[in-house]
């Protein structure tokens, strides 16, 4: 097993899928000559040529639409948004074209497209560059939403996303690109819609995804020092959601904390909580608590930014709350 960065894992996935199927192409800003704004597409232009690695003008709406159009006639585009903040400009194409084409055409026109890029906050990038929109896309029938947290998951899930015949929203993270992890050799494909127990436990369930998985794992470490065994679930795919894994865990632990980076109101965690209370009501010993980003635009100042983000201490406090333990 090799140890790869998250970015290199993605690079491998793209390379392998483009080699495997010549309908797959990559399009976006700076993906070619610049080698990728975050270097995810390093070397791909040289290997596959300018028809398959296409640099675009700054036209998110336009090139998202180009991707959908190409998919309508059978190509398999991977459209890169430099960040998901900019995809707001393209959301009409994602929602009104990509998500709905199959349904409106009565099954005639599938859209096998992947929209990918980093989402959520990085460091001190301020209000317009730090947003988490996974809930917006997860809300739309016709889309799939994937949020890998580790290099192995990034590779395996991107390969699946590219092979999927549906439009997939693939949300990475600037702060994840440099993280390292073991990635299995050979053909490594992870099915969409399957969550992963990243750390088994018995006393409380911590549900999380994307960058927050690391936060949850850190909280689990802290809780272990007090003799509390936390189970950390990494959802990996938000839509379709693996409710079964979450429910099985809650049935075991009887209590749950959901950790998400985005804003609290109608955030994706609310959907998770709804699923738990519907499926595991009689197994709950306490209400499900969410730890989310603060309900504010992201401030620039580094200390304010820290306050705005979830951290392990907040997760530990939430876990203690659902365990009916006094705050430390």
């Amino acid at each position, binding site marked *: 097993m090799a140890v790869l960065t998250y970015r290199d894992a993605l690079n491998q996935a793209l390379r392998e899928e483009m080699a495997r199927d010549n309908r797959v*192409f990559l399009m976006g800003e700076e993906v070619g000559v610049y080698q990728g704004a975050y270097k995810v597409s390093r070397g791909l232009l040289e290997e596959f040529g300018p*028809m398959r690695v*296409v640099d*675009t*003008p700054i*036209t998110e*709406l*336009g*090139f*998202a*639409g*180009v*991707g*959908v*159009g*190409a*998919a*309508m*006639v*059978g*190509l398999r*585009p991977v459209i890169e948004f430099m960040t998901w903040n900019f995809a707001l400009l393209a959301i*009409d*194409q994602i929602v*009104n*074209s990509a998500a709905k*084409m*199959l*349904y*409106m*055409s*009565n*099954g*005639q*026109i*599938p859209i*096998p497209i992947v929209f990918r890029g980093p989402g959520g906050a990085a460091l001190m990038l301020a209000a317009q560059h730090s947003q988490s929109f996974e809930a917006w896309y997860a809300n739309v*029938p*016709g889309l*799939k939403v994937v949020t890998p947290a580790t290099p192995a998951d990034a590779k395996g899930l991107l390969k699946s996303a590219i092979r999927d*015949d*549906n439009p997939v929203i693939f949300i990475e993270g600037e702060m994840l690109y440099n993280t390292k992890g073991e990635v299995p050799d050979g053909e490594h494909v992870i099915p969409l819609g399957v969550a992963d127990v990243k750390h088994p436990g018995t006393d409380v369930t911590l549900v999380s995804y994307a960058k927050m998985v690391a936060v949850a794992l850190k909280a689990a470490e802290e809780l272990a020092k007090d003799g509390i065994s936390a189970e950390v679930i990494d959802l990996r795919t938000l839509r379709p959601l693996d409710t079964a894994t979450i429910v099985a865990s809650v049935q075991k632990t009887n209590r749950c904390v959901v950790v998400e980076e985005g804003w609290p109101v109608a955030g994706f965690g609310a959907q998770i909580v709804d699923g738990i209370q519907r499926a595991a009501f009689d197994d709950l010993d306490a209400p499900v608590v969410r730890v989310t980003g603060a309900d504010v635009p992201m401030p620039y100042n580094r200390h304010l930014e820290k306050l705005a983000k979830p951290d392990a201490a907040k997760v530990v406090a939430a876990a203690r709350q659902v365990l009916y333990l006094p705050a430390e």
Partner: protein
Amino acid sequence: MTDTAAAAKKAPKDADALRKMLRDMLLIRRFEEKSGEAYALGKIGGFCHLYIGQEAVGVGTMAALRPDDYVLTSYREHGQALARGMSSRAVMAELYGKATGCSGGKGGSMHLFDVSKGFLGGHAIVGGHIPLVTGVAFAIKYREGDQVAVAFFGEAAVNNGAFHEALNMAALWRLPAIFICENNRYGMGTALERASAIYDVAQRACSYDMPAEVVDGMDVLAVRDAVARAAQRARDRYTPTLLEIRTYRFMGHSMSDPIHGHYRTKDEVDEMKARDPIHAFADKLRADGLLDDEHWQAMEADVTDEVEDALRFADESPEPGPEALTTDVYRD
């Protein structure tokens, strides 16, 4: 030999093709008139945008395209769908929302699809489908094909960001696309001169260094020939074209909008009706000896039958069952 006779001995293929074009326009006209009636009777719901007055644009365009070309259009699409060869039964049934409609009753007036005819919808966000056409053209070039991808849109779409982005990329990457602007002068209730800093749509092509033409949309042959030129340019040289086809709709923007009133005068409408493309073309064919009264009446009766048949078919077709609610959200 009389002129008529001599003309009748001209390329019979051409004559058939021309008469087909006339018939197609007439079919569209009658179909749309009946759709309007059906809408008023509550058999068609939602929005219904009629093509009456613009028949020459759809028919002329399709006459210049191949079966393996692709067409994407906006919501004023019944005429274009019929011109492309989709069955009037399938289209009417879709307007009625029936399971036998070309989109299974799940698309409606604004979302007609038939992949077998290269008719890729039916899109309801103004300008939203134009980048899709650039994408289809991209795929054609990617595969080194010689098909063309055609976008129909109204003049109100040309101020839209999507239009600009799509045309820029089509020209930048040299893609086989034809952007057909059906300039009927009014975006719903707003005249073009009130919405646009530049009135001549074709002028915008110079922003993209793209070939462009202004075409008389009431003349079906002019349309056909312009589209044929653009198609050749696309097939031979992977070069896109912007066609501004000046036309006029005789009805309101949709069934819910007035034909005239605050935004245009009755006189103007009547004046344009005098330039009805169907009558103009029928007159031309008569003059060329390719059409006589018998033909014309047979054509009218035939079209009337076809539309009546479509109405009956739509009326008698079943509704989609409740299970259709959740099919085709995802492709498994």
